[in-house]
C-alpha cells in the first residue's frame, strides 16, 4: 500500500468524522445549507489534492473549516447580490478567528448546529429518497458513489437527487433552524422515518441478491445514536434506537453458511448479539421512562424485545406480542401491523383464528403487492392441512417478492407442499 493510499484512507476517516460538524458550522454561518455543503465538498477536494504531498495537518477539522470559509468568502465576494450575507460572514469569520479555540465552549454550540443539520436534511418538503441521500451525505459523510452502491442505483442518480434536494431547500426558503412548538413533532417524525428507512434498506434489501447490507444498518444505528445525544428528551428517538439495536442483534443468525435466510423460528439464538440486545433493552427502558411506551417505535421495539427475551422460539410470549400489536394498531394503524397481529393471534388461539384476522385483509389494496400476506397465509393453511391452497399462496408470494433469495425460499416452500402426502 502506497503512502498516497494511506493518506486517502485517512482523509476518508477524517471526512466521516468532520463532515457533519463542518457542514453544520458552515450552514449556520452562511445561513445557506446548499452553499455550506458545496463549500465543504470543495474543501474535501482541496484536501485530497494537497494532503498526499503536504501531509495531513495537525488539526484536520480546523484546516477543512478554514479552507471552506475562504472558498465561501471568495464565492460571496463574486456574488454582489449576497452583499448582506457577505458582511455577516466577515463578522462571523472575525469572531471565529479571534475566538480562543476552547474546545469545551465550541462543543456546546455544535450540538444545536448538528441538530439543525439533521432537521434540514430531513425536511418534509423533500421526498423520502432525497432526505435519505442528503442525510447519508451530510451526516454520514458518505460519498455519492457509496450511497449509489448501497441503494443499487447509478452515481448520477444520487448526484442528481442531492442537487435537486438542495435546490428545493433553497427554493422553499427552508431556514437553517430548529423546529419549535407544534412544528417539532412532525419534523422529528420525518427525521426518524429517514433513519429507519436507511436501516431497513440495509436490513432487508428490497432488490438484488444481497439479503442485507450491514453497513447501511450500522450507519442508521450511528444516526440513531447521534439523535439520542442531541435530543435526549425525545422518547421516540430511544424507541427507534432500541428497535434498530434489537433487530440488528439477529444479524449473525439471519443467514446460514450458504448465505441463505434463516427465519426467526429456526434461528440459533446463541448467535444473537448480546451487546446489541443489552443496548436495545436499555434504550427501550429509556423510551418508556420518558413516557413514550405508546410511541410507534417504542411499541415495535417492545415487540422485538419479546423475541430477544425468549430463550427459544417455543418460549415466545405470543399473547404479549398480540397485545402489543393491538396497541400498535391504535397509534399507527396499518394493514402490515394487522398482518403481524394475525401471526401472533394464530400462535395464541390457533391457525384458524389467525386466518380470520388475515381474511379481513385480503381485499386491502395496500397489501395487493405485498408478498408477506400470501406467505403468512401459506404458513397458516399448511397448519390447517389445506396444502393445495398453501402451495398456491406460496407461489403467489414468490411471484411478488423482488428479493432473489426470498423468492428461492418461497418456491421451496411451495414445492414442499406439493410433495407432502395429503
Amino acid at each position, binding site marked *: 500500500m502506497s503512502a498516497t493510499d494511506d493518506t486517502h484512507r485517512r482523509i476518508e476517516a477524517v471526512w*466521516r468524522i468532520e463532515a457533519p460538524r463542518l457542514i453544520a458550522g458552515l450552514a449556520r454561518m452562511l445561513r445557506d445549507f446548499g452553499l455550506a455543503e458545496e463549500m465543504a465538498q470543495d474543501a474535501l477536494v482541496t484536501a485530497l489534492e494537497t494532503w498526499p504531498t503536504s501531509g495531513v495537518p495537525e488539526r484536520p477539522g480546523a484546516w477543512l473549516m478554514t479552507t471552506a470559509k475562504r472558498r465561501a468568502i471568495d464565492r460571496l465576494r463574486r456574488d454582489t447580490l449576497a452583499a448582506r450575507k457577505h458582511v455577516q460572514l466577515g463578522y462571523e469569520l472575525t469572531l471565529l478567528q479571534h475566538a480562543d479555540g476552547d474546545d*469545551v465552549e465550541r*462543543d456546546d454550540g455544535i*450540538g444545536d448546529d448538528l441538530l439543525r443539520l439533521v432537521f434540514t436534511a430531513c425536511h418534509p418538503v423533500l421526498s423520502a429518497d432525497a432526505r435519505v441521500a442528503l442525510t447519508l451525505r451530510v451526516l454520514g459523510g458518505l460519498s455519492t458513489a457509496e450511497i449509489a452502491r448501497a441503494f443499487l442505483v447509478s452515481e448520477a442518480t444520487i448526484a442528481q437527487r442531492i442537487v435537486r434536494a438542495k435546490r428545493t431547500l433553497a427554493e422553499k426558503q427552508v431556514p437553517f433552524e430548529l423546529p419549535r412548538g407544534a412544528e417539532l413533532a412532525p419534523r422529528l417524525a420525518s427525521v426518524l422515518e429517514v433513519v429507519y428507512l436507511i436501516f431497513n434498506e440495509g436490513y432487508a434489501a428490497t432488490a438484488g441478491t444481497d439479503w442485507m447490507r450491514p453497513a447501511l444498518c450500522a450507519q442508521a*444505528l450511528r444516526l440513531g*445514536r447521534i439523535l439520542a445525544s442531541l435530543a435526549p428528551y425525545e422518547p421516540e428517538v430511544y424507541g427507534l434506537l432500541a428497535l434498530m439495536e434489537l433487530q440488528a442483534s439477529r444479524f449473525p443468525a439471519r443467514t446460514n453458511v450458504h448465505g441463505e435466510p434463516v427465519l426467526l423460528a429456526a434461528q440459533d439464538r446463541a448467535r444473537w*448479539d448480546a*451487546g446489541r440486545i443489552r*443496548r436495545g433493552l436499555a434504550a427501550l427502558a429509556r423510551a418508556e421512562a420518558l413516557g413514550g411506551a405508546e410511541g410507534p417505535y417504542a411499541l415495535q421495539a417492545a415487540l422485538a424485545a419479546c423475541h430477544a*427475551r425468549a430463550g427459544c422460539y417455543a418460549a415466545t410470549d405470543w399473547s404479549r406480542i398480540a397485545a402489543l400489536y393491538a396497541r400498535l394498531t391504535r397509534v399507527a394503524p396499518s394493514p402490515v401491523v394487522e398482518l403481524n397481529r394475525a401471526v401472533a393471534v394464530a400462535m395464541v388461539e390457533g391457525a384458524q383464528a389467525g386466518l380470520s384476522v388475515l381474511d379481513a385483509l385480503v381485499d386491502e389494496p395496500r397489501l395487493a403487492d405485498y408478498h408477506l400476506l400470501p406467505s403468512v397465509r401459506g404458513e397458516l393453511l399448511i397448519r390447517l392441512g389445506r396444502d393445495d391452497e398453501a402451495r398456491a399462496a406460496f407461489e403467489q408470494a414468490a411471484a411478488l417478492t423482488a428479493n432473489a433469495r426470498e423468492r428461492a425460499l418461497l418456491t421451496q416452500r411451495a414445492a414442499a407442499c406439493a410433495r407432502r402426502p395429503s
Partner: protein
Amino acid sequence: MRFMLLMIPRGYANAAPDTMPDAAAVARMMAYNRELQQAGVLLGLDGLHPPSTGARVSFDHDRPTVTDGPFAEAKEALGGYWMLDVASRDEAIEWARRCPAGPDEVIEVRRVQEMADFPEDVQAAATGLEDMQKTAATPPDPSSR
C-alpha cells in the same frame, strides 16, 4: 465494527492509590466524550483506579499467587477505555488522535473480536458465550405475564 481505545497513562503503573485526575483534565475529556457521542460512535467508556489499589493473580507456579499492587515489574497500566462503533480501523485511529491526552499518555487501538471472526471449531467451542452475556443482560420483563 467495534474498537477499544485503551488509555495507558505513563506513570499510572506506580501512581498513588488516591490518584485522581484534575477537574480541568476531566472537563477536556468530557468535551471529547461528547464529540464521540454526538458522532454516534460511542458505545461505552470507563476509567480504572490505579493498579496500587488492585491485585494480580498469577499462574506462574502450580497454584495461583496473589500480589497486591503496585506491581514493581509493570511498566504500563491501563487507565480506562472507550468502546467505539466505527466504520474502519482508520476511523478508530483518527478518533484516538483527537483525544486531549497529555504528553505522557498512550492510546492503544484494538479491534474487538466478534463471533464471526473465529473459525468454525472455535465458534463451536464458544457456543453459549453470547447466551451467558445475554442472561446477565436481560432481566425478565416484569410487565409480561
